[in-house]
């Protein structure tokens, strides 16, 4: 429900003018779909360029001589090893190595980093950063920005036509092209694309220019969800929670080997002992047989009817043309092609464990 405490996007009037249908997500009133509908919006993004208003997400600028040390404590990575403009996918962990939030951290300067956090965890993330900042010589500044994502094979060309050159920027790099702008080559659709944080007035100019380009159209949160699920990317609150550690989530690629061995990040001891004994459950892709979607919360059983795990995200993949899902299963059942069954309203739907992503990533890495 959209209640009185619901936050509204600064560009809400533009979404209204484009015929958006709104719904509540993480405390925000968000455009879920536009008149084209989720199916066409999803496919448009894969074929051309989708424009997403993701201003519900939060940007924090962390600066000061203790910043790298602070981030190395908060996240299982090596902030000091990042080159200027390099971005890394990482997390805030709790003492049990549970994932408080997943983030993108970009090094802007010697002692200056940008942290992009999820909407649903922004308040907690800010408290967490402020609490840590007291122990380090660092300043945490939440930024007031419109945040836009433009995703798809035509994203770079549409930005170029709108006067923004992106040529030298590679995937997982971010820069400050104008005052109070932050632009990274990144996104959450599996496509090449950009995320741009900028002041509202600049955002209105940019949106107007971009929408003049027939390759660009607004895309709602519903298609953002189906795009990221096809791309095998996790949604915090569903696929990742403070009860799930990076080893179970299959995200150890985000933690450098030296950091695993000797890092002093919060949750390091817990993560090391999880790695020693091996996680009991693992995140996997799940491909349901037939056309019926299998959704978050569905229980999974093995061929003998024994509990096997549960689904954390599920829906229909407009690009794959079949239902797609992901979830957690017992480690012994996590091998691709393992046949399991999902309980959907009392019916057992066969699902096969499959490798992720469902739709190949098309990032521009070099």
């Amino acid at each position, binding site marked *: 429900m959209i209640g009185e405490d619901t936050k509204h996007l600064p560009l809400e009037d533009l979404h209204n003018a484009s015929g958006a249908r709104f719904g509540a997500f993480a405390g925000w009133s968000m455009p879920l779909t536009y008149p084209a*509908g*989720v*199916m066409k919006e999803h496919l448009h993004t894969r074929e051309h360029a989708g424009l997403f208003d993701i201003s519900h997400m939060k940007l924090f600028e962390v600066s000061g001589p203790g910043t790298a040390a602070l981030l190395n404590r908060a996240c299982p990575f090596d902030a000091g090893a990042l080159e200027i403009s390099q971005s890394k996918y990482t997390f805030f962990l709790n003492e049990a190595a549970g994932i408080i939030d997943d983030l993108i951290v970009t090094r802007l300067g010697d002692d200056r980093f940008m942290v992009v956090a999820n909407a649903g965890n922004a308040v907690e993330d800010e408290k967490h950063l402020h609490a840590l900042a007291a122990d380090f010589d660092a300043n945490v500044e939440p930024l007031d920005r419109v945040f836009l994502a433009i995703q798809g094979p035509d994203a770079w060309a549409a930005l170029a036509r709108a006067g923004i050159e992106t040529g030298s920027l590679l995937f997982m790099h971010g820069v400050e092209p104008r005052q109070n702008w932050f632009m990274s080559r990144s996104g959450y659709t599996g496509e090449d694309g950009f995320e741009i944080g900028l002041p509202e007035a600049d955002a209105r100019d940019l949106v107007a220019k971009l929408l003049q380009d027939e390759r660009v159209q607004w895309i709602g949160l*519903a298609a953002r969800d*189906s795009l990221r699920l096809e791309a095998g990317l996790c949604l915090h609150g569903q696929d990742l929670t403070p009860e799930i550690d990076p080893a179970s989530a299959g995200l150890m690629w985000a933690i450098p080997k030296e950091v695993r061995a000797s890092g002093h990040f919060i949750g390091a001891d817990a993560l090391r002992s999880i790695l020693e004994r091996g996680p009991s459950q693992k995140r996997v892709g799940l491909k349901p047989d037939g*056309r*019926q979607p299998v959704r978050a919360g569905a229980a999974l059983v093995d061929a003998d009817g024994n509990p096997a795990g549960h689904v954390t995200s599920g*829906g*229909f993949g407009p690009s794959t043309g079949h239902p797609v899902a992901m979830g957690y299963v017992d480690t012994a059942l996590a091998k691709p092609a393992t046949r399991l069954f999902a309980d959907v309203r009392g019916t057992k739907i066969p699902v096969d464990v499959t490798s992720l992503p469902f739709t190949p990533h098309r990032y521009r890495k070099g």
Partner: protein
Amino acid sequence: MANTYFTEDHEWLRIEGGVATVGITDYAQEQLGDLVFVELPEIGRKLAKGDTAVVVESVKAASDVYAPVDGEITEANTSLSSDPSLVNSAATGDGWLWKMKLSNASQLDSLMDEAAYKAHIG
């Protein structure tokens, strides 16, 4: 649409010879968005008003469609198995969901006619 009734849950019923053809309204299909799956009912199943008859699934969510009156399922629209998007493109025509034999025709009196339904959705 004479002999056509509407419910507050955005279903329509067309009555012919004691049998109701039931579907969801154009307003409802718009709210749901692109449908990707329709779980059809078994023929012969007896339903009381308010029972879940059909589940329609969009990309994003599953939604129940309730029996608007008491009765017995006589037919399900099997063309929706291969093309659930018929509900989006022709909600009040080829996208019908099921047919049911009415067991209590007087229940129709509590439903809306088209004018009342239009007022209901504003």
